[in-house]
């Protein structure tokens, strides 16, 4: 619900799989208006960190705190304020795009609004394909439908794991523009990425993970992205 101020804090988060530490004492704080790019090589812990922040995985140590207008949220309030777009798109392939959006709008606690759904379908570029089942969509179109799920959710915090996967160049630019719009309207966005240009164009902060540790928490923009990718390449930060 844009208009509220949210802050998401991870405090010394640890996540262990078997004997392997996926996340080691990861701390970060981000607030409304931030677009945090989570960077790192394959296996650095990006997906796990985003999953923990979204509540999809429970940390083995430390904690994640979401505050809304200065008050700590819990349970249903956290789930209502947070929306995630992981690799598996979390949309029903045998429903149409329109049905998916109406369904997720209801799950988010809102009465389905045909006008709002039509407007979101238009915004994600699926107005003409709104009544086709998602299974018939290309990967890029499915990605757009999944982004529609976030748009109808009304969530304050968007967490996206490599959201440009499957999108063509036009789609990629559209998505980055959409995310920038969301940040300007007061949402907090966290996304993982492997592309310097994406980070340079829209991130307000960069966070570099290496073997489950935060090794750089720096600014966004072109300079921030350059520093982050230099750090990932093993050069001087």
């Amino acid at each position, binding site marked *: 619900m844009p208009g509220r101020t949210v802050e998401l804090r991870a405090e010394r988060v640890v996540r262990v799989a078997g004997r392997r530490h996926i996340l080691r004492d990861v701390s970060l704080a981000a607030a409304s208006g931030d677009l945090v790019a989570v960077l790192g090589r394959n296996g650095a812990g990006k997906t796990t960190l985003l999953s923990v922040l979204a509540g999809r995985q429970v940390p083995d140590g430390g904690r994640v705190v979401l505050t809304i207008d200065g008050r700590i949220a819990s349970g249903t309030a956290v789930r209502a304020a947070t929306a*995630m777009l992981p690799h*598996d798109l979390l949309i029903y392939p045998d429903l149409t795009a329109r049905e998916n959006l109406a369904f997720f709008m209801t799950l988010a606690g809102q009465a389905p609004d045909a006008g709002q759904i039509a407007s979101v379908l238009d915004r994600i570029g699926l107005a003409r394909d709104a009544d086709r089942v998602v299974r018939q969509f290309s990967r890029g179109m499915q990605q757009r439908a999944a982004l529609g799920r976030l748009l109808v959710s009304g969530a304050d915090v968007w967490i996206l794991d490599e959201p440009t996967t499957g999108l063509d160049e036009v789609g990629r630019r559209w998505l980055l523009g959409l995310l920038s719009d969301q940040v300007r309207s007061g949402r907090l966005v966290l996304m993982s990425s492997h592309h310097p240009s994406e980070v340079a164009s829209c991130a307000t902060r960069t966070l570099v993970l290496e073997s489950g540790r935060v090794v750089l928490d720096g600014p966004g923009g072109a300079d921030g992205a350059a520093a982050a990718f230099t750090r990932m390449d093993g050069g001087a930060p």
Partner: protein
Amino acid sequence: MQAWRQFVAIVRKDLVVEFRTREILLTMALFSMLLVIVFAFAFLSDPTRARDYGPGIIWVTVLFASTIGQNRLFDRERENGCLWSLLLSPTGAGTIFLAKATTQFLFTVLMELPTLLLILVFFDLAVVRPGAFVGALLLGTIALSLVGTLFSAMLMNARMKEVLLPLVTYPLLVPVVIAGVKVTSVAVGAPVAEDPELWLRFLLGFDMIFAVATWFLFGRMIRA
């Protein structure tokens, strides 16, 4: 009101997907009809005893066919990781459970209607106490749906879930089947000295206890 809307949305979504794909209902109905035909060939040599074994055939068919539905109940949630879209939404785990159990109940009832008709016709059974007959089937189907939904969710990602699900649920459901057979026997006029009301009360008690227990356990099990 919000929970009710979410409940209706989940049930409607399952029904829309099912009527679009016809994966669960068709399989359940075909399997149950096949079972009835096999039973008919096995037992019709002595039609005078149809009232004795008819109730057992009804309940074995309902139990086996409902297991097929239970095995596939969460398949839609598994694809594309959709279970997480439910669990990460503000919808309560209890609402999700009740919606999925209701879907399973509706699928089972839809499978039962043609199957029962087939059994009554094939075995020439007359229902002399329709209230007890319908009551036993409804209460029994609720029990099958509650227990089946809970364990179907629990075993959703298990290897060999088709084998594990009946192994886990059947021991719990044996009392339901026994009670169902007892009431149905009386309902079709079999010469048995049973009090159907006692068994119906047992089924009602089973449903009430398991409704609370499964509703309570679902949230913990599904997140684990």
